[in-house]
């Protein structure tokens, strides 16, 4: 029998309120023992009660909420304890629960049980993690859409169409030519492309945007010392984050600032100006600058309009900015530079939109539903590949292979929702969860 599990559901550390969640068959008796309460708890009603340790001394006083199975998050009996947010006392309450027969929950175990008990499908369970991880409002709203099952419904409708086409094909295989009219191959091809392949293709494409919504993008600003990289960072993020001075080599470490573009979380890194130097601290800063540039999704090279020696473009640059353009009206620099002024704000809007276009395919930003996880993208792409391989064989003399490919495509789609080889998928997904969800 699955044991009863308990864990802190709120973030560790001091807070106003700390919530402990208990789930499993013994949730209610354990809660009653903790509260030394003879009667049960009314379903879904907040009850204020002291919580006792084994010495019958009060550990905390808080709300107890009882959700009887199956109408709970996990589908099992669930009790939530809302107490004061002292990490020490919450730890003591948890230890008391363990002594009463609960065991600590594994990461993601509550949600895992919700899936096992049919409270949600796998894609929804993943959306729970996404809701928690969302770093921008747009990402959060997208995660909500997935949690509500919009993605699952879209998939189911695609699978429904596919089932129809597979069934048609199977009928051709199981009934001889005597019994059935000839298979309309061009028609089948067209309908499959329209109802199945095309929607999947669009979902796969949406992943580049959807995954950016959660994974975000990193941008490194590089350039010679004192071209105004730190001023640019301050101007873009709207806060006075970096120290700006006229002295070359002011920025020595890598400075990071988070902001968003098109709802995508962006991490901008300002780096030490690249130059030969004897200063060992500055040298380390320059090494880190190069490292940041290597791992960034987009490398922005900044030059100074007033100093042609800062203009040569390094090969790692994805975008080139000419700062202090307001100070050099004749614009004699080579092509390919975008003129800006971190001081006046000139050209910054254009930079932002060009940067956004580098990060994501902006044509997709109008879609309302995005694929947001690599697992989903991978399986959708696999389904598409199987469908296309099947299509290629439609004209040949082996419809049984077409059927084999299309069935594989169906299985790949089903795997997204958690039908199929469940255990291995579950393990892969729930390893990403934090405890308490």
């Amino acid at each position, binding site marked *: 029998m699955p044991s009863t599990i308990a864990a802190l559901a709120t973030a560790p550390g001091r807070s106003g309120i700390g919530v402990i969640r208990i789930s499993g068959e013994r949730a209610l008796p354990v809660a009653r023992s903790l509260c030394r309460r003879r009667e049960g708890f009314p379903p879904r009603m907040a009850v204020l009660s002291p919580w006792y340790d084994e010495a019958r001394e009060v550990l905390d006083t808080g709300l107890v909420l009882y959700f009887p199975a199956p109408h709970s998050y996990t589908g099992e009996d669930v009790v939530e304890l809302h107490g004061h947010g002292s990490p020490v006392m919450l730890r003591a309450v948890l230890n008391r629960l363990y002594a009463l027969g609960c065991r600590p929950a594994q990461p993601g175990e509550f949600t895992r049980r919700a899936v096992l008990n049919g409270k949600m499908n796998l894609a929804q369970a993943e959306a729970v993690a996404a809701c928690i991880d969302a770093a921008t409002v747009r990402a959060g709203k997208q995660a909500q859409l997935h949690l509500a099952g919009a993605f699952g419904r879209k998939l189911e409708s695609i699978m429904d169409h596919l089932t129809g086409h597979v069934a048609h094909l199977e009928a051709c*295989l199981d*009934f001889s030519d005597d019994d059935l009219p000839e298979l309309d191959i061009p028609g089948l091809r067209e309908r499959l492309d329209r109802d199945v392949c095309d929607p999947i293709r669009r979902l796969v494409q949406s992943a580049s945007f959807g995954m950016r919504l959660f994974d975000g993008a990193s941008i490194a600003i590089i350039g010679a010392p004192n071209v105004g990289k730190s001023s640019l960072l301050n101007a873009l993020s709207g806060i006075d984050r970096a120290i700006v001075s006229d002295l070359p080599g002011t920025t020595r470490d890598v400075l990071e600032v988070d902001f968003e573009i098109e709802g995508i979380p962006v991490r901008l890194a300002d780096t030490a100006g690249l130059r030969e130097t004897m200063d060992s601290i500055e040298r380390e800063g320059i090494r880190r600058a190069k490292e940041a540039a290597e791992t960034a999704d987009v490398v922005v090279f900044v030059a100074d309009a007033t100093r042609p020696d800062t203009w040569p473009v390094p090969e790692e640059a994805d975008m080139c900015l000419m700062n202090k353009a307001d100070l050099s009206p004749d614009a004699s620099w080579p092509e390919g530079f975008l003129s800006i002024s971190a001081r006046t704000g000139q050209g910054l809007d254009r930079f932002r939109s060009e940067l956004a276009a580098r990060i994501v395919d902006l044509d997709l930003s109008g879609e309302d539903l995005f694929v947001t996880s690599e697992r989903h993208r991978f399986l959708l792409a696999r389904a598409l590949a199987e469908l296309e391989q099947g299509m290629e064989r439609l004209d040949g003399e082996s419809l049984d*292979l077409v059927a084999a490919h299309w069935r594989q495509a169906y299985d790949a789609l089903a795997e997204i929702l958690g039908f199929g080889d469940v255990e291995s998928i*579950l393990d892969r997904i729930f390893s990403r969860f934090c405890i308490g969800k």
Partner: protein
Amino acid sequence: MKADAMFHVKHPDVVDVLVIGAGHAGAECAWAAARRGARVRLLTQNLDTIAKMSCNPAIGGIGKGHLVREIDALNGIMPRAADASALQYRVLNRRKGPAVRATRAQCDRRLYQMHVRHLLDAHPNIGLHQATARQLVFDGDQVVGVVDELGMLHQARAVVLTTGTFLGGLIHIGESKFPAGRFGDAAVDSLTDELYHREFRLGRLKTGTPPRLDRRSIRWDELESQPGDPDAWPFSMQVSSLPRDQLACAVTRTNERTHEIIRENLHRSPMYSGEIRSTGPRYCPSIEDKVVRFPEKSGHQIFLEPEGRDHEEIYPNGVSTSLPLDVQWAFIRSIEGLEQARIIRPGYAIEYDYVDPTELQPSLETKKIRGLFHAGQINGTTGYEEAAAQGLLAGINAAARALDLESWVPDRSEAYLGVMVDDLVTRGVMEPYRMFTSRAEFRLHLREDNAEMRLGEHAIRLDLYDEERIRWHERRRERIERAMHEVRTAFVGTGAGWRERLAALGLPVPPQGMPLASYYHRPDVRSDKVLQLIDGAASLEPRERASLLAMIHYEGYLDKQQQDIERFRKLEGHRIPEHFDFASVQGLSIECRQRLSECRPRTLGQAARIPGVTPAAISSLMLHLHGERA
């Protein structure tokens, strides 16, 4: 009831296996049990109607042909009798892939019966006995015999019920109905009551058959003729050639006039008047069903099939009906070529009892009564081939029960027989169950050409082959494996020698050297001729060459399927203890718990195939069976 003094007479011989019914399931069952060394008695109402084809005079078809090959690989009688009585062979799905290619034969109805009867008569372990079974005799939860209608007690260690359409059989022709197991044969009622007493879940199903026509009254010259295929393979590996003079069938169609006659008289059909409420086979609808369900079609095809070489009876395939006799005459005569046709037997519908097959273990032994087995239509299936394959399996396992031998059930990756039995005992039936290739998830592997390679070793272990057949099998296996090895390692080159060889066969020279399979898959090749590049292929016969070609054709796919099979077997390997308490598993919905408790699956894989049991429930079950993970 105890075997006490209420019987007038005991049969002097106690047998190991008593088979009730001598249709396709019963005959095959007796034969298989006897081959395993069991002493068998075959009880039938009429010794002259053994292995009768009550409906169409044909064996095989898509999925069904696959079953017949498996029966042959297990040394059964259906393939031999079919080959011995075949009038015409057809290769179906010739251009849809080797896995779904299938064989069907029109057979001489009387010759077929004669051959089966002859084989059964010749086996020293089989005793035939004409009697109608009336009552099962139990000792606790064990069946110990059967009492027949004359009061004779037949004692046996195992009893197999193969009752076909005879249990509670009720024939409908238009407004009239009468009890019968088949037109002209009496129904059996009392056994159903016995099963009710033991709380078996029973139901009613329906099937039907067309009227038969007098050959001499058909205008054959006006009809399109459909000849046989000379390159079909006989069903039995022991038979190497087809009859030289295959008979042709003829094709005609219903027309608007036919449909009008049927529509005008629908209210007189028991299916539409509400007289029959049980479910018939959706895939084999009556002509009145077709007219109602496909009103847009102006005609339905009819095949006129001979029932024998010196037979005046013709089977019009496609017009199964339970309309009144006058309507049958009228609509038949509205059809081209049949304007003067004479009906010599009426078409009819028949309702009969079946027992929910989820009452069975995969060995086809009932879960409630030890030693009692069910096979054929009593399990809710339709078709001779489905019945025979089950009969064979029941025979193997009834002998095992009686003689304490190894029991055996093929799994879904080994045989269509395994797919069918698993479907039946796991999912039950909602309508008569027919074999389809789409039911097999490992379809590419379950082909007609490799049935003996799939099942031969099992047959040897189960004592189903005699010495000669074992030698044959081993030689064949060796030949094929050698040729397959050659295929795997063969490399098509571009040197002078190769160019000459390829040119002689009319095959193109590849741009560079490549493995044989890759060469075959080139769009400019794709020819069976590549087999002639394999030295070992020359000594193979057509069926074996087909295996080789399938291996090349499915290059890559078969390996992938093999991985799927291994994954499948892993799940099948998670056994569930026999008396496992499904109610004790937490986290199962009430529905899942109920379904699991009802079906009592033996493996996790089987549990996963029960309708309504979710993957999540399987995970819970797995956790429970293996103790919780840390």
